């Protein structure tokens, strides 16, 4: 440190965040979001309280990781022999042990995140054509948000699919 340097100043200035939402290289807008407000229980699936703590902790670790990238990114990421981390089917799967919940909008594009060998996080996204469009009540639609509806520990949401 120079004669007129100051360790307190250096510590203070070193404590500022190194990143910015507005930085040209920020990936913030691309990071996907998870929304749990449509979550519901179906006898084919589980409640959060049905999962042991270590399994829930594993789920949140996965969510933290998935949240670093966009949904489009995860649609491209391979997993297993021929699967993808995120698959969007469109309509509610025909071969499903779950029942379509009435509180989910009819425009929902149903899909699932793969959590492990049999575990799935099932839900929907809004259609691409609504992305960024304003809603009359305020706010804008976001096609980079995954709305979680079911916990599917035993791969019963879309039987036959990976």
């Amino acid at each position: 440190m120079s004669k007129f340097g100051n360790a307190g100043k250096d510590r203070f200035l070193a404590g500022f965040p190194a990143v910015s939402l507005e930085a040209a290289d920020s990936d913030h807008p691309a990071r996907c979001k998870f929304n749990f407000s449509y979550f519901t229980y179906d006898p084919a699936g589980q409640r959060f309280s049905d999962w042991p703590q270590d399994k829930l902790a594993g789920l949140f670790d996965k969510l933290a990781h998935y949240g670093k990238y966009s949904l489009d990114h995860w649609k491209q990421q391979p997993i297993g022999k021929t699967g993808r981390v995120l698959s969007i089917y469109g309509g509610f799967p025909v071969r499903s042990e779950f029942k379509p919940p009435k509180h989910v909008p009819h425009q929902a594009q149903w899909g699932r995140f793969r959590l492990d060998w049999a575990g799935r996080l099932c839900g929907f996204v809004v259609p691409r054509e609504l992305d960024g469009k304003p809603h009359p009540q305020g706010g804008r639609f976001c096609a980079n948000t995954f709305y979680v509806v079911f916990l599917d520990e035993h791969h019963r949401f879309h039987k036959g699919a990976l």
Partner: protein
Amino acid sequence: MPLDEGRVITDGRLRMEYYTSATSDGNRQQDSMLLEYGLRNFLSFKEGATVNFRLDANVPPRISLDLPAATVMCIKGANGSGKTHLLKGLAFLASFASSSFSTDPDADIPVAPFFSSPEASAFFAEFQVADTRYRYELDVHASGVAREALYKASKRRTLVFERTADGVRAIARLKALETMKVRRNASVVSAAYHHQIDELLPVHTFFKNIHFNVGSSGTRESLFMDLHKVAQLLSEHDDVRGYVEQFLQDCDIGITRLQISSEEGSDGQRRFFPVFIHEVDGQPCAVMPATESAGTKQIFRLMLPIAAVVASGSVLILDELDLYLHPHLLPRLLGLFLQTKAPGDPIAQLLFSTHHSEVMDLCGRYRTTFVNKDNNQSYAYRLDEIPGDLLRNDRSLVAPYNDRKIGGVPRL
């Protein structure tokens, strides 16, 4: 009227040259600017602190005024953070460099190290006079100077003189410094001035023209906070009285005229005082200082040094600029230092502390220095040293300041 008559008004602008006995020796300084100063082991600063006025090419011209250094520097911080101590560092350095030759030969140097640390207190100032840059360094104990040095750079930096315990060594044309007698409690610069060694005159003049309202531990007290002394000086300089009167009128504080009166005191000396003339129902009403508002008296006091510094192009240090003043008056005061300069115009600089927050947006991040305290030790940083884009030229500084994101606020 020519400048050598001391004061004229040219093109409606004040051209007062000097206003106190301290600056009445006719040494008009060439264009000069303070670029940076620093201190270490002084009052609440155990480690170093610098106040950097330099503006680089990244600074927008509307802020830099196409000058190499800022003309205003705002010092902000919580109560007790060390703002005044930071100002006192420059006041001490200026006072010691220019005036220590005239102090009591047996007196201690009025320097206050961090909690009585036995180490020397250290100071430096970098400034330019015309095309020459100087760096003055001083390491000092109360008992005497440990080291004093002056560097000079037009194209490359050279050591002009260095004083240590072994004596003074100097460049060839200043060998007179090596034989000059300098007391332990006086600076080479002030001694050289009294020995009429002209080579150091620009340095002496630069420091001597720095005015302040913070005590520098007694080496050179400011005149301008004494209402009667201000009044006496204005009585001798009617153009300055007119300048102050005009500013008082512009401030919308109800003053229509500023009159200077005097009376004979019990000691036989004349005592000068201002009389503030207000107009009520078309009739002039005189208000004496005892009943005039504190804010009006504060503007009256401040305007003398401001007028002098703006006219002569030197440095003014004002602690608590906003004391008694309405916040809307501050931009008007700062505006006197923020006007675009024509080539050859004197360049005045104002270093001030304030608790007023909105002034930060007038000064911006390049012209605002914060003082924080950690473990009872102060440190200082200019706001453009904060990394990233937290602070931007096109956004207010007040919001992140109020959100406690950039320091300078008390931890309540």
